[in-house]
C-alpha cells in the first residue's frame, strides 16, 4: 500500500547526499531552498557540501533549476506517473521494455544510472512540485512518488516531501487534521466532519454549484479558478477577507480588509515540513487581523439560533465495513 515517508528539512540539510527535485523549479519558486536546506549546505556528515551531494532535476522543460542540477532528466509532458511507475518496477529488478522507457522521454542507460544512484546513496530525498501534483493524474502522481520513496527504504534511507507553495497552506492542512481528522475537502453538514475530495473540494463544489454561500480568506479564487467556479461565486453571497481588494473581493457581497500575516499581523505559520514558526510583524496595520475578524464573525454567528434544532441529532453516515 505504500505510505508517506518524510522528514524535516534539517535532516535533508544534514544527511541527504542524493536530492531529486521532480516537477518543481526551486530556483525561481523557492529561491532559498538550495542554499538553506539542500544542496549548498555543509554538515558534519557531508562536510564538502555541494561536492558531497548529487542533485537530479526531473521536469518537462529545462528550467533555471536545471543549471543547479548534476543530472537533468526531461520527462515527456504527462508521463510522470508512467516514469515513476517504471522506476518502482526497476528498483525491484522487474523488466521494462526499451520502447516503454522511451515513451517517457528516458533511456534505459539513464534510468539504470538513476536507479543505481538511488540505491547506492546513503540518504535520498524526492521533493515534488506542482509540475507533478497539478498535472494529469494529480494526487496519484504525488502518491506514486511517495510510494517509490517508501519502497526505496528496502535498499537505503529515502524520503519524499511536497514543495508546498502559498505561504501557510501547510498550517491549514495540519490544523484541519488535528481538529477534524482530515486535511481538506471536508463537510460538517451532519454536525461532524466527513471527508471526500472530489465531492467536498472547492473547485468541484463551485463548478457543480453545490454551495449557497462562500467565505473566502487568504486566497483569490476569483483570479485563479475555472470560469464556471468563478461564476458560481458571483451568483451566491460571497464574503472575502484579504489585505487587498482582490478579484474575489470585486465579485463578493462583503469584503473586509485585514492586516497581512507576518507583515502586520502576528501569529504562526507552518513550513512545508510541518514545523511551526512564529511570525514577527514589523508594521502596525490600520486593519484588524484575519484572526480577529473571523472570531468576531463566529461570535456573531454564535448569537443566532443554532442550526441544529434542539434535541435533534443528525444521522451519522458511517462506513460499512
Amino acid at each position, binding site marked *: 500500500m505504500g*505510505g508517506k*515517508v518524510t522528514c524535516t*528539512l534539517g535532516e535533508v540539510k544534514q544527511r541527504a547526499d542524493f536530492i531529486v527535485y521532480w516537477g518543481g523549479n526551486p530556483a525561481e519558486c523557492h529561491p532559498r531552498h538550495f542554499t538553506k536546506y539542500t544542496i549548498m549546505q555543509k554538515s558534519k556528515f557531508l562536510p564538502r557540501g555541494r561536492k558531497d551531494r548529487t542533485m537530479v532535476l526531473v521536469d518537462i522543460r529545462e528550467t533555471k533549476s536545471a543549471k543547479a542540477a548534476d543530472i537533468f532528466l526531461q520527462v515527456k509532458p504527462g508521463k510522470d506517473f508512467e516514469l515513476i511507475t517504471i522506476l518502482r518496477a526497476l528498483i525491484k529488478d522487474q523488466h521494462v521494455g526499451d520502447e516503454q522507457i522511451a515513451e517517457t522521454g528516458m533511456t534505459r542507460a539513464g534510468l539504470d544510472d538513476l536507479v543505481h544512484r538511488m540505491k547506492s546513496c546513503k540518504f535520498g530525498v524526492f521533493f515534488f512540485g506542482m509540475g507533478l501534483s497539478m498535472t494529469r493524474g494529480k494526487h496519484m502522481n504525488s502518491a506514486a512518488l511517495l510510494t517509490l520513496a517508501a519502497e526505496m527504504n528496502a535498499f537505503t534511507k529515502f524520503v519524499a516531501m511536497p514543495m508546498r507553495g502559498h505561504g501557510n497552506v501547510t498550517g491549514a492542512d495540519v490544523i484541519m487534521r488535528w481538529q*477534524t481528522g482530515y486535511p481538506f475537502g471536508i463537510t460538517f453538514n451532519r454536525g461532524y466532519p466527513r471527508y471526500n475530495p472530489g465531492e467536498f473540494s472547492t473547485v468541484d463544489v463551485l463548478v457543480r454549484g453545490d454551495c449557497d454561500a462562500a467565505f473566502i480568506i487568504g486566497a483569490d479564487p476569483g483570479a485563479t479558478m475555472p470560469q464556471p467556479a468563478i461564476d458560481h461565486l458571483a451568483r451566491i453571497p460571497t464574503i472575502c477577507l484579504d489585505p487587498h481588494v482582490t478579484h474575489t473581493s470585486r465579485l463578493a457581497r462583503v469584503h473586509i480588509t485585514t492586516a497581512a500575516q507576518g507583515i502586520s499581523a502576528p501569529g504562526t505559520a507552518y513550513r512545508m515540513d510541518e*514545523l511551526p514558526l512564529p511570525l514577527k510583524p514589523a508594521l502596525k496595520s490600520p486593519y484588524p487581523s484575519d484572526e480577529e475578524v473571523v472570531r468576531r464573525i463566529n461570535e456573531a454567528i454564535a448569537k443566532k439560533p443554532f442550526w441544529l434544532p434542539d434535541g435533534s*441529532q443528525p444521522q*451519522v453516515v458511517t462506513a460499512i465495513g
Partner: protein
Amino acid sequence: MLKITGGKVYDPANEINGQIKDLCIDDNGRFVESVSGGRTIDATGMIIFPGGVDVHTHVAGGAMNFARAMTPEDHRRTQAFIRTQSRRSGLGGMAPTTFATGYLYAGMGFTTVNEAAVPVLSARHTHEELADIPIVDKATLTLMANNEIMLDQMQAGEYERAKNVVAWYLWAAKSYGVKAVNPGGVAAWKWGSDAKQLNDPIAGYSSLTPGKIVTMLATICDDLQLPHPMHLHCNNLGAPGNISTTLDTLKHLEGHRAHIAHSQYHAYGGDDWDTMCSATSQLAEYFNTHPNITTDAGAVLFGDTVTITADGPWQHLLYKLTGRKWGNLDVENETGCGIVPYTYRPSNLVNAVQWASGLELMLLIKSPWQVFLSTDHPNGGCFWRYPEIIQLLMCADFRKECIAKLPDKIKNRITLPEIDREYTLYEVATSMSAGPARALGLHQKGNLGIGCDADLVIYEEEIDIARMFSHPRYVIKAGEIVIEDGDIRETPHGREFLVKPSYAPETDEFMRPLFEDCYTMQFDNYPVEIERIENPDVRILPGS
C-alpha cells in the same frame, strides 16, 4: 462548590479502601474539609475513584497528526461527536481528533494525560494541539535519547554539559520530563540501521553505547530533580527474545529512579517469531525486587489500531510484515517516528502472546503502585478501551474465557492461564490513578485528600465491569461536573504541567553554534514561548 455524599471511596493515596466518605470541593476546584451551600450529589451506593491518570499516551503532535492523515477509513467508521451550540465536533477512533480526545478521556473518568513523546522541534505544534484537547490536564515528555547534540556531549564524556543541554531543551520545549526511546537506535535508523545491543557502540559514534546513554540520562533526570524520572522505551522493542535486552537495560539503571514504558513490548522470550513466548515472569520478578522502578503495561487488545512510535526501525519492520500503509517522519537532530496501521488478531500467535503478556505483567507485578494501566495508546489498542482491560484484570473467569479462544499452540508460551489473581477496586484505583500520579510526581492528582485537585469519577456499581468503567455516572474535573449520565456537560480548558530546570547560563551560547550547524530554523525562534501554553502550571526546579 460541590458536596458528594454517601459514596464508597477508593483513594489509595490516603489508604481509603471503600469506606463511605463525604467529599467537599471549594470554588477553586480543590478538596476541602467542608463547604456550605452549592450542589450536593448523593452518591449512596456508588463508587468513587480519583480521576484517571494516563502515564503514557500519544494524543498530540506531529506523529499523531500524521496518523490522523493516514487513517481516513477509520474516521469514517468511528464514533462521531456531533457539534452542539457550545461544543466542537470531533471523531474518535484509533487516532481521535483533539476535541474528541478530551471527550473520550473524560468520558471514561480520566482527567490527566501525559503525552509521552514530543520532539522539541514539534513542541510548539504539540502544545497547540494540547490546547485543543479539552477537559483533561496535560503534561508532555521530551524525546532526548537520540538528540545528537546531547549524544555528542556524552560521547565526549562531558556529563555536566550533557545535563545542561537536557535542561535547556526541557525548558525550550516547555516540557515536564525526559523520554528516552530506543537510545541510540533512532539516531542509527537515520542511516537505515538500529541499536539492539546495549554495549555495542551506536552507528556514527566511537564508544557511546545505548547502555551508557541509559545510565547517563537517568542520572541527569535524578540530578535535575525532575518530578518524573527518566521515562524509558527500551531498545529492541517488540523482538522475540528481547527480555535479555530489557533486563540488561534495567541493570544499567541500578540505583536510579526510572519509569519503563509499555513493558509488554519488552518482555518476550524465544529466538524468532516462531518460538516467541512470554518472558513476563522474569521481568515481573525484577520489578518485585526493585521498587525504584515503575512501569506501564502497554497492554494489547485485539482489533484494529494504528501504531505510532519514535522507534522508526521497528515501524519499518512492521510495515514489511504487514504490507500495509507506512508513514515515517524523521526530525532533524532529535528523533523520528513511524506510523503503521495494524490489526491484532487472536488467531495470530505473536499477537496472542502480546495480549497475554500485557495482562501477565499487570498481574505478576505485585504492587499496583509499580505497574499502571496503559495500552501505549494507540499502539497496543485505543485508550478508550481501558475498561476492557480492567475487566480482564478483575475477572479471572472472563480471562479464562478469552484464553480459551486463543490458538492451541499458545500453551507453554504464556503463563496467564496459571494466574488466578483478580484486581480489587482498590488496586484498579491505584493502577489507573494514584500510582501513575505518584510516578509522575503530580501529588495533587490521583488523590482525594484535602488540598488536592478535585478530579474524581463516580461509578454506578455494576456486574459488567467493562460497562461500569466505560459509563461513569459523574466525572468531576477541578470541581466542575463535566460528565453526567453519559452526557458531556462542560468542556473546560485544562492546565499544562511543565518544569523549569536550571542550567548554566552559558548553555545558550554553547548551544547556538551547535544548533545552527544542524537545525534549519533560527536559534532564537526555537524555544516555545511560555505565552503559547494554555494555563501553564510551572514547577521551578531547584538549582544544581
